[in-house]
């Protein structure tokens, strides 16, 4: 684990990570560096984030005009998306019309409500809400009554959502087009890792001056970590690690003496040591997070030695964007490993094996999917 730098030595990775870690240095970049950085940042969906940091530092005028124009364009787009989702939340609250349904706002919109440092320029398009299972139907019918619609549903969709994933299908108001995802769980119910949403809901905190809630700071970080390391394949997902790290620094700054301890205790209590371990580890490795290594040693649950080494090698290659002109085979392999891992985490073995066999079959005999695809 000591040879941290080795796996992130690709020059283009270094370029992007430097820009995130030291935005003030961007004024010294030459045109060639800018051209590559802009492409990488777009791929990582971090151009709005970089633009917001430059704007805040008053530096947009001190960089090459073409770079400034593109970053400015991304920032305008991000601001529009944030406004759209914010307005959607306004309309959802209106549609619920004083009914006593506590809404917990998750992810991007929550960051925006709290004005967290990672919110500025952040690109997100959906409104994610967490409610109790009992309130699910109430919300669905209130929104449907006020003009929201499910994406036109086939019988298959309907069954998929309601029986299989125990969620309601996403709701969209046709005049605004923002997707409203109302959840009553925090992870896919198919996953092996079961997360009880109740402690999260109980600890939620009210947003100042509003009748809505967000997860408390520790839970917000844990939720971010779970989404990053438990639910997905990590490809081009650096921005979520940036979210994690920015929020971590911010909350530590706000509660300097206690926050780290609270975070560890909460992770232990909720048995979410693994994803927190990885989030802390890679924040330090890739984003120069100053958090001490002692911190994750206090976790009850930690990944094993082999898993750590595999992840240490693979995760940076997956999280960081490929070079746009020189895709690397190593990165493709690393992404494959993580793809398999994400399926492993989501599916029990008796479902995973047939699934992978089938995928392999498809890769050998493409186009024969109809024979086996449907009726299994």
């Amino acid at each position, binding site marked *: 684990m000591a040879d941290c730098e080795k796996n992130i030595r690709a020059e283009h990775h270094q370029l992007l990570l430097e820009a995130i870690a030291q935005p003030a240095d961007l004024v010294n970049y030459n045109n060639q560096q800018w051209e590559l950085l802009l492409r990488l940042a777009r791929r990582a969906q971090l151009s709005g984030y970089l633009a917001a940091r430059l704007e805040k530092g008053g530096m947009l005028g001190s960089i090459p005009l073409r770079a400034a124009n593109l970053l400015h364009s991304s920032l305008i787009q991000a601001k*529009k998306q944030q*406004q*759209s989702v*914010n*307005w959607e939340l*306004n*309309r959802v609250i*209106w549609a619920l019309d004083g009914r006593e349904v506590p809404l917990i706002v998750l992810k991007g919109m929550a960051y925006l409500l709290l004005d967290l440092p990672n919110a500025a320029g952040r690109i997100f398009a959906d409104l994610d809400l967490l409610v109790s299972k009992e309130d699910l139907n109430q919300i669905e019918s209130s929104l449907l009554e*006020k*003009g929201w619609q499910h994406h036109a549903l086939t019988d298959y969709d309907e069954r998929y959502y309601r029986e299989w994933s125990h969620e309601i299908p996403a709701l969209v108001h046709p005049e605004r087009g923002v997707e409203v995802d109302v959840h009553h769980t925090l992870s896919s119910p198919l996953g092996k890792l079961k997360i009880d949403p109740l402690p999260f809901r109980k600890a939620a905190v009210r947003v100042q001056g509003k009748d809505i809630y967000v997860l408390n700071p520790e839970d917000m970080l844990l939720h971010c970590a779970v989404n990053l390391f438990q639910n997905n394949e990590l490809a081009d997902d650096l921005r979520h690690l940036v979210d994690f790290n920015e929020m971590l620094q911010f909350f530590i700054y706000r509660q300097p003496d206690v926050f780290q301890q609270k975070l560890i205790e909460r992770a232990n209590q909720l048995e979410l040591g693994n994803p927190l371990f990885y989030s802390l580890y890679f924040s330090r490795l890739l984003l120069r997070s100053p958090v001490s290594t002692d911190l994750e040693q206090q976790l009850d649950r930690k990944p094993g030695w082999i898993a750590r080494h595999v992840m240490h090698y693979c995760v940076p290659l997956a999280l960081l964007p490929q070079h746009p002109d020189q895709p690397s085979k190593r990165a493709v392999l690393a992404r494959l490993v993580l793809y398999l891992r994400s399926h492993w985490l989501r599916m029990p073995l008796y479902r995973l094996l047939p699934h992978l066999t089938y995928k392999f079959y498809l890769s050998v005999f493409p186009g024969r999917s109809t024979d086996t695809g449907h009726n299994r």
Partner: protein
Amino acid sequence: MFWKACNFSSLPVENWNGEFTVFQPESGKTHFLNEMGLKILIILDQSPASLDTLCQKLSEYFTLQPDVQFPGQIARTLQRYEALGLIARVKESE
């Protein structure tokens, strides 16, 4: 029940010979109104009003003949305005 306009005075309004474009910053939407459409917002911005009061003020201002259909039309318009977030319901007149 009463209606009031939401921050109407802060919305940019452009007059095009009696037709109006209004920009709503919160939603980012541009609305295109005729004169009565705008007058409703102006009245509800001055003070909250009930449907009856609003209809009466509009009839006076536009010197309309009495029409039984009129309040229904205005009520539907108010619902539309409410859905757009241009106006809101209030319990009291003040």
